[in-house]
């Protein structure tokens, strides 16, 4: 695999239902009711139940790890959370993940990937960056 600045990762598309949020809550131990209960979410001023930011970040992390070919090659990974992924009771939310290589360090054998993660037309992660070991 030749990796250079501008190399694009395969675009991924995930559907998130309320059940998927419950699965993440159990797996992560983060049972904040704003991710599980509509009444609580609305009571604190949110439009509806929202996905855990860490679930969205986790999905994008999966895209990077799959591209790297070995999950342990993801050396660092960070993001800001700029908009919530709103998950209604009626239909799943859609999260799309795209990634582009923005830097390559040939000596260190690493590449830096910039991720663009959107849902319902909004950018939900900002400055989502991962450094990946290439070999």
């Amino acid at each position: 695999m030749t990796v250079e600045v501008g190399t694009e990762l395969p675009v991924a598309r995930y559907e998130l239902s309320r059940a998927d949020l419950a699965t993440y809550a159990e797996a992560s131990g983060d049972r904040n009711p704003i991710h599980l209960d509509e009444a609580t979410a609305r009571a604190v001023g949110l439009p509806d139940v929202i996905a855990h930011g860490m679930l969205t970040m986790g999905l994008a992390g999966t895209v990077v790890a799959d591209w790297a070919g070995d999950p342990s090659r993801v050396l660092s990974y960070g993001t800001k959370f700029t908009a919530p992924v709103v998950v209604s009771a009626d239909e799943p939310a859609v999260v799309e993940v795209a990634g582009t290589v923005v830097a390559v360090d040939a000596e260190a054998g690493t590449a830096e990937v910039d991720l663009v993660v959107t849902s319902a037309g909004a950018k939900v992660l900002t400055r989502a960056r991962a450094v990946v070991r290439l070999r």
Partner: protein
Amino acid sequence: MTTVSVDESFAGRVYPPNGTTTVTADAVRAFARAVRAAHPSHHDTAAANELGFADVVAPPTFAVTLAQAAEAQFISDPAAGIDFSRVVHGEEQFTHHRPIVAGDELAAEVHVDRVRVVRGNAMVTTRTELTLADGTPVTTVTSMLVVRAPEEP
């Protein structure tokens, strides 16, 4: 303007490790399923062995489960004044010093790096250092939470 009543004096506090937590293969598999990580090294011990790991490997964001459990010492302390239902995630950063593998016994030390109130909202930055019991660095997890101010009545 309403403002949150988070105690800014918590900045600088350090919560030393409260024992160790053993990472189980079941926890790694369940987390991997939740983030749709299908790579065999998360699920199949033999596949992980082939890549040189002693057991299944955690996905890149798995460390948050250990960090959040440790951060709770601070976040859930009534004296800190954080209303969890008003918390949203601002930023998260993982720096992996070595992979997390099932069977690892990890200790978590939580540093409250910053607490500040901006326009009524509190921004709380913690850094959790995950290490092996002998102190070998594993993952540094930096997390910024926003505690949103109550709506105007």
